[in-house]
């Protein structure tokens, strides 16, 4: 865990900005390390009043594992959608309600983005009371199986990473 301090209100954002700065310059010269560090402190300080409260990140390693899993699923999704586009059989499209256990906005956003990037599903809109996401699926054989898979594969790890 990176502790929050008065001059580092969003430590993870600062870390991200610093790494992005070094990547953008593709350099690890001392000058860039220092300049990136200054920007990583100043930008969050200036902008954090505009941001929603960020949830605590409890298991960073688990998040890394989650990202790798999603990256792999994106590759699979590409082949799957490519196959669906090229095969001439009719699609079984469906709107599906995915009930949500998550309550915070950031984890819901991550879940919705994951759904959009992975096999055959795009999230369209979240319910006003955040109880479900309406998902459009390109080709559904079994609705219940789809819901169960999304909940087990993506929502459960997110709940562990961002406990309420």
């Amino acid at each position, binding site marked *: 865990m990176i502790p929050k301090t008065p001059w580092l209100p969003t430590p993870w954002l600062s870390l991200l900005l610093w790494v*992005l700065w070094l*990547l*953008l310059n*593709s350099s690890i010269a001392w000058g860039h390390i220092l300049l990136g560090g200054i920007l990583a402190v100043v930008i969050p300080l200036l902008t954090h009043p505009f941001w929603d409260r960020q949830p605590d990140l409890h298991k960073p390693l688990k998040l890394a594992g989650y990202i790798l899993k999603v990256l792999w699923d*994106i*590759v699979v*999704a*590409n*082949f799957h*959608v*490519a196959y669906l*586009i*090229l095969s001439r059989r*009719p*699609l*079984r*499209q*469906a*709107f*599906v*309600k995915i009930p949500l256990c998550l309550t915070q906005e950031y984890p819901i956003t991550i879940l*919705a*983005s*994951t759904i*959009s*990037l992975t096999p*055959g599903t*795009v*999230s*369209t*809109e979240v*319910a*006003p*009371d955040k109880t479900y996401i*309406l998902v*459009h699926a*390109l080709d*559904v054989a079994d*609705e219940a199986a789809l819901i169960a898979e999304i909940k087990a594969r993506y929502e459960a790890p997110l709940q562990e990473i961002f406990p309420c």
Partner: protein
Amino acid sequence: MHFEVHLPFWLEALVAFFLLLGAVFAFIGSIGLARLPDFYSRLHAPTKATTLGVGGMLIASMLHFSYAQGSLSVHEILVAIFLLISAPITAYMLSKVALHHQSPSVQNTQGQDLPQQLQQEWHRERIKSKTDKPKLPG
């Protein structure tokens, strides 16, 4: 920076492979845009088929320039990160607009009444928040 570098054959082949892979997926994504039947299904093509399309080209670019410059080229990783963040958000915005404008979906779609239901839920929510607006402090 000079770009005319002679790559060894195996690397050239690898770069060509990833370029072709990327091109094929970008092409399939475009076919999907043209061929899928309604707005919602057309959204699937640009959010997915094209991520691997651009991904393949980025890997090819990374291999080529890492060799040509003699150091690991990392700008492509940034392109990939920004793409993966922005693609689902774009798809979400588009589908949200489609939903609230009641864009028609094809006849045999299961759960066809769900978008309208959700739209009405949002409508009620907006009326509610208009009538009981919280008083501003001060």
